[in-house]
């Protein structure tokens, strides 16, 4: 264990949705600059973890604690968590008709800068940055004018999420299956986007089903989430093991009834 202060510390987290317990005692510690991959079967609670961390309505924490940069994360409103540097790239990004991407991004960046006491960015500078971000994720600049995710294809939505990450420069990025539904070229673009943002003061939680993303984004740690708990942790080689053997060998008992899961 190094002595660096943790960025994110989750201790014995229990959380539920609509009275149903989904996260059942989860511990995780992330230091600045680390990349953690979370893998696990469908319904394990991976997306739920992202929602709980970002404070989505309806997701309630039953017990446990989460700190971000030493601050109690669970005590904050959703937008304050975002302003504190937490970013979630959604597995299924929602459409907001009529609200242009650029307008939305500028408002987000403004809100976050203001919360951090930074000066507002000028529209011209912002536009320049946004265009560069588009280029980096290989989205035509015209997408800035389109409604947020409005009529985007699945892959475009994912890249749009990544573009937002590039502009918001968060401390902790949670990417929820940002690779699913992407062809190999798009996958590389996503990986390059993430790699370009890797730095000593930025950490990632990469939720994925596939080892192939981890060929491009080398994780420092790999965790297996199953039935609301981390059942195994290891280094990058764990992902290869999972690829070869699936998840079944990790589960003491078989996953609960599929219908429930």
């Amino acid at each position, binding site marked *: 264990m190094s002595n660096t202060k943790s960025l994110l510390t989750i201790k014995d987290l229990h959380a539920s949705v609509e009275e149903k317990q989904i996260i059942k005692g989860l511990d995780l510690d992330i230091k600045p600059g680390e990349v953690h991959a979370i893998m696990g079967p469908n319904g394990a609670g991976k997306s739920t973890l992202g929602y709980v961390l970002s404070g989505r309505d309806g997701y309630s924490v039953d017990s446990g604690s989460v700190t971000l940069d030493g601050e109690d994360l669970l005590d904050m409103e959703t*937008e304050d968590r975002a302003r504190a540097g937490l970013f979630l790239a959604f597995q299924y990004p*929602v459409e907001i008709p009529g609200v242009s991407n650029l307008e939305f991004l500028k408002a987000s960046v403004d809100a976050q800068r203001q919360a951090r006491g930074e000066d507002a960015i000028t529209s011209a500078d912002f536009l320049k940055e946004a265009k560069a971000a588009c280029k980096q994720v290989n989205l035509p600049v015209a997408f800035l004018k389109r409604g947020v995710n409005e009529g985007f294809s699945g892959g475009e939505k994912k890249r749009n999420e990544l573009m937002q990450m590039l502009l918001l420069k968060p401390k902790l990025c949670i990417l929820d299956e940002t690779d699913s539904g992407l062809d190999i070229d798009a996958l590389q673009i996503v990986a390059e986007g993430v790699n370009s943002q890797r730095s000593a003061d930025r950490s990632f939680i990469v939720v994925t089903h596939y080892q192939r993303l981890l060929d491009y984004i080398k994780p420092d740690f790999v965790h297996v989430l199953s039935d609301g708990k981390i059942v195994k942790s290891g280094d990058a080689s764990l992902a290869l093991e999972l690829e070869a053997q699936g998840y079944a060998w990790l589960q003491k008992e078989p996953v609960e009834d599929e219908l429930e899961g």
Partner: protein
Amino acid sequence: MTEQIDKALAREYEAGFVSDVESETFEPGLDESVIRRISEMKGEPEWMLEWRLSAFREWLEMEEPEWALVDYPKIDFQSISYYSAPKSMKDKPKSLDEVDPELLRTYEKLGIPLIEQQMLAGIAVDAVFDSVSVVTTFREKLEEAGVIFCPISEALHKYPDLVKKYIGSVVPKKDNYYAALNCAVFTDGSFVYIPKGTRCPMELSTYFRINEQNTGQFERTLIIADEGSHVSYLEGCTAPQRDENQLHAAVVELVAMDNAEIKYSTVQNWYPGDENGKGGIYNFVTKRGICHTNAKISWTQVETGSSVTWKYPSCILKGDNSVGEFYSVALTRGRQQADTGTKMIHIGKNTKSTIISKGISAGRSNNSYRGLVRMNPGAEGARNFTQCDSLLIGDQCGAHTFPYVESRNPSAIIEHEATTSKVSDEQMFLCRQRGLDPEKAVSMIVNGFCKEVFKELPMEFAVEAGKLLEISLEGSVG
């Protein structure tokens, strides 16, 4: 979450102040002598008085319409004063210097400076205060282009033939109850004439202000765009915050001659009453335009005020290839009630109409779209497209759609669609996850919902409309 949204939409009514001006106001009451007095005050020609009186007699025989989905206590027309004007306006100030500074201050407070140097370049304003026009700016500049823009009371003296020819030609005297009443008692309003082939060099606008208590406002606007001309006209309105309801029954007539184009935009922000429905303006307005060959009339409205709105800006597409458009955002909250929409009457061949209506209901309000699309037998090849979307915010409000679709021509095509939705939890979560506070998130989502309409507004108005919905358009890509 609804609470947050409500909070986001709640706003102070900033225009709710009362101006301290001494006014000459008629005693409440309505009979022929009141009409004679109005006509006399305005020094009107005899025919105008006769016209008013005949409208009044017809009105007496008519019944108040009850078909709209609005509910308000019966209006006592005898308890309303039908004329009120600042005393200082009595000797008709010749220039701005002679106008009571308090009046100028009123408009300045409303964001409408009437001193030309301070004004937004490119907009001429007719400022109507209760029953009179206070001042009309940029008249010289407009006159150079041959454009007439003046109070209708003045037009009756200077251009009686034009007024006589067109007044009541689009909205007949007994068109409906409130229109008939307006014909009888209208006090002032704007008159516009754009000569043949002229593109009006600036935006024209009228700003209506009700100030006096217990008075009704009955203004009348007449816009004539002669062949091949073009004009963009804006209209704004506010009133003080009072506990009593006040009646506003206006008539607007537009005439677009062959190849002419009129763009008419309204930002209606009459006092809406308080959260419990106390006070507010009854806004019963008849607006209609007639399009001759190849002409185009485009109505854009942002309706956020009034306790009751009853308003259907319409187009009679008489000439072949003429075009009618209606873009509307209606936001109701508190106990507001809006019943608004349009009529598109297709008479000529290949006429086209587009209707985009966005209704947002919050609080305990009710918001209805009511529209008529009629294809007459001669409307060969005519087309209509209608899209009505409603957004409900909270479970105590109502959103309604009543479209009448009538076709009597087999080659005409009509398409009508209506949807309802709400601000979804997912959208709110996405916005907040990106760091936006809930208020900002709502206004952005609501703004997005209205986008198609806002983009039809002239720039300056788009900004004002955005502010009205507590929405900043800042950062939107041009």
